[in-house]
């Protein structure tokens, strides 16, 4: 009973949430409309299109207790059928181009694609490799970019906050 009373009397002691980041300049109205349609809740499906796993570790950190992207309304789900947001990492290898396209087709509308890491944006150190088909934008339309090799968890959280608008 004491414990319950304590919980009630103390209340929340977390820092106030930082102001939500703006979507930024150069973003077309269509993306803004899709972000509004998500209404602050983004179900995220991660697709490793051929990365070195560095970005995956940072994504894992972004959802860890330290960075905790879930408090901003982003949540990792297990199937693109449940997802609004695709978090794509790595250069797109020949084997993963088809599955990436299928994943994009399987996600429900409206959907947002976030390319995470340098490789996803321009191929990074793997650009021009024999097994590399291209960058993510060559395969599916990309809405947001998170540069870095690998990007910091804070940057990934920042991108996800743009999507959730919180």
């Amino acid at each position: 009973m004491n414990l319950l009373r304590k919980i009630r009397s103390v209340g929340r002691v977390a820092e106030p949430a930082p102001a939500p980041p703006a979507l930024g300049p150069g973003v077309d109205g269509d993306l803004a409309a899709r972000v509004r349609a998500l209404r602050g809740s983004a179900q995220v499906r991660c697709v490793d299109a051929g990365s070195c796993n560095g970005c995956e570790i940072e994504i894992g950190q972004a959802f860890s207790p330290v960075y905790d992207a879930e408090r901003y309304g982003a949540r990792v789900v297990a199937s693109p059928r449940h997802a609004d947001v695709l978090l794509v990492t790595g250069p797109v290898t020949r084997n993963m181009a088809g599955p990436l396209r299928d994943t994009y087709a399987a996600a429900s509308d409206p959907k947002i694609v976030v390319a995470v890491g340098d490789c996803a944006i321009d191929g990074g150190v793997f650009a021009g490799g024999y097994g590399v088909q291209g960058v993510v934008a060559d395969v599916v339309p990309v809405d947001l970019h998170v540069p870095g090799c690998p990007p910091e968890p804070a940057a990934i959280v920042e991108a996800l906050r743009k999507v959730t608008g919180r």
Partner: protein
Amino acid sequence: MNPVALGLAVASAAGALAVAAALLAPARVRVALVGVLTAVLGAAGMAAGGAALAGHIFTAHVSQLLPLAGVYLAVDALSGVFLSVGGAVVLAASVYGIGYFRHSGHNGHSGGNGRAIQVLWPVFAFSLVLVPAAASVSTLLVAWELMAVSSLLLVVSEHRRSAQVRSAGVWYAVMTHLGLVTILIGLVWLASAARTETFAGIAAAAPGISPVVRGGVFVLVLAGFGSKAGMVPLHAWLPRAHPEAPSPASALMSAAMVNLGVYGLVRVGLDLLGGGSRWWWLLVLLLGSLSAVYGILQASVANDLKRLLAYSTVENLGLILVGVGAAGVFKDSGFPVLAALALAAALLHTMTHAAFKTLLFLGAGSVLHATGTRDLDDLGGLRARMPVTTGLFALGALGAAALPGGAGFPSEWLLLQSLIHGLVVPGVTVVVLLPVAVGAIALSAGLAVAAFVKALGTGFLAKSRTPAAEHAHEPPPAMLAGMGLAALACAGFALVPGLVGPLLGRAVAAAGLGGAGADQAAGRLSALGSTLSPLLVVGGALLLVVLLRVLMRLVARGPRRAAPLWDCGAGPLTPRMEYTATSFAEPLQRVFDNVLAPESDLDVTAYTESAYLVERVAYSRAVPDRVEHRLYTPVIGAVRRAGTASRALANGSVHRYLGYGFASVIVLLLVLAAAQ
């Protein structure tokens, strides 16, 4: 004129005409003519049974028909249950047969429109009507043998198809005749003790017969009638013979013929012998529980669709025997209301089982007709090509799984209720056995769900696993009509089981459970419609589905979009990724490993260059019938050894044979002299 007599007369006339048509009509119209006439036979039998259930009693003695004894016929409400069930099954199966036999020349089967099958069909159907109407020992035995022989010939009618059919025929022939022998000995013993062979006379004389004779008679007829009803361990013929018969004949055997084993047991045990001792019925209860669990366990790991259904018959007949056994125990312990309820549950389950098993076997026949295979592993994807058959099979499977909304639910529920209320009965054995029986019913109901989800899910849903299943097609309209009739019965039992309550009350009273208890139970059964209304459950469930659809429409935003099936990005889904019947049953098989004792064989062949490079992996699995393995193999071996040993006695010398004859006459005279 008595409506029962009229029905039986019409049935006999239709049967005779059908036999004549099968022999004389040209091949073009033979199947249709025989089918229609046999359907009339079934309808007349059903009407006669219905009239008997409505309270009309019929007795007749035709002295010219059989030498010495004559034919005694009597139809009361108890016979009426089995008469109407048999007639109804004959009706549905005959309508189905019009389509089935005309077309079964496909897929490598021998044609079903030949004279032999077409003559046997009405004969078998008529014997099913005759057995419950028999009212003397000799009439019953003649009708019983007619039924056994005609069904045996139907089982082996497709003997050219495979050696399995012939083996099934041998098993069936031997076991049904051993059963006949035990029934014969038992009933003749009873008749000689009662000094009359009519059932009415035996029932009157039974209280004066010594308990030892009555016990002996009961054990003998239990063995005979029990083997016909597929009671473990005398069930071995059933899962062999039922799958190999042409499908309409399988339906007749599995839904109508096996019931007559129960009829015989109830008629002789409860009616003629008047109940007897408690141990009789505890034995029936125990064997019934064993059959229920063992049967459905084997069904849940069976891959052959018709074999699965045959094992499910073993299960359901086991449940019926549990009800009969419980009725006997309750009667002996002085609880007539409970006894009447338990027997009513057993009789109701007889009816519902007949309805859904007819539907399932006819559905299996349509699958066999469309694909040429019964192996569930080779089917799949039939829903798209045989939507009507799939829907009807699903209705039957729902009934067999004993879920609310299915035909089997009301009767199993009533059975469970009567057993649970029976826990007030005193006695150590009863107190131990009744909860075991309740557990057996619950376990078999659970396993039945698994077995029929497997049958429907792996057989009809998902994608086709073989080209045969891919090119399946709906059966001709006559077959669909036959299945439709059975489905109608299923829906009736599932939705308004209360309608048969008063009829069951009369049948229970006719089974020797009369008196105030039966009246009270009949009142309870009449109220079955108001105390148990699955109609509400089904209606509620349907309403919920409709509401959900409407709600989804209202909540959904944006237009609908078609997208390819999500395959985890690993390429298109293929039938190889599906659950097969084997893989679906694998966890169950693992759980019941100790009971089923499956035999699996993994054979890995390595390349000669290296033991680590695998060239070929062969896996095979078989779930042999363990009872058969453990019990029948030693017995058959012993009989064979005895036969080989006794061959030494017959060395071909005429002198020796004359000596045997002389010696036996001397011994007989000595025995008679000593007995004087």
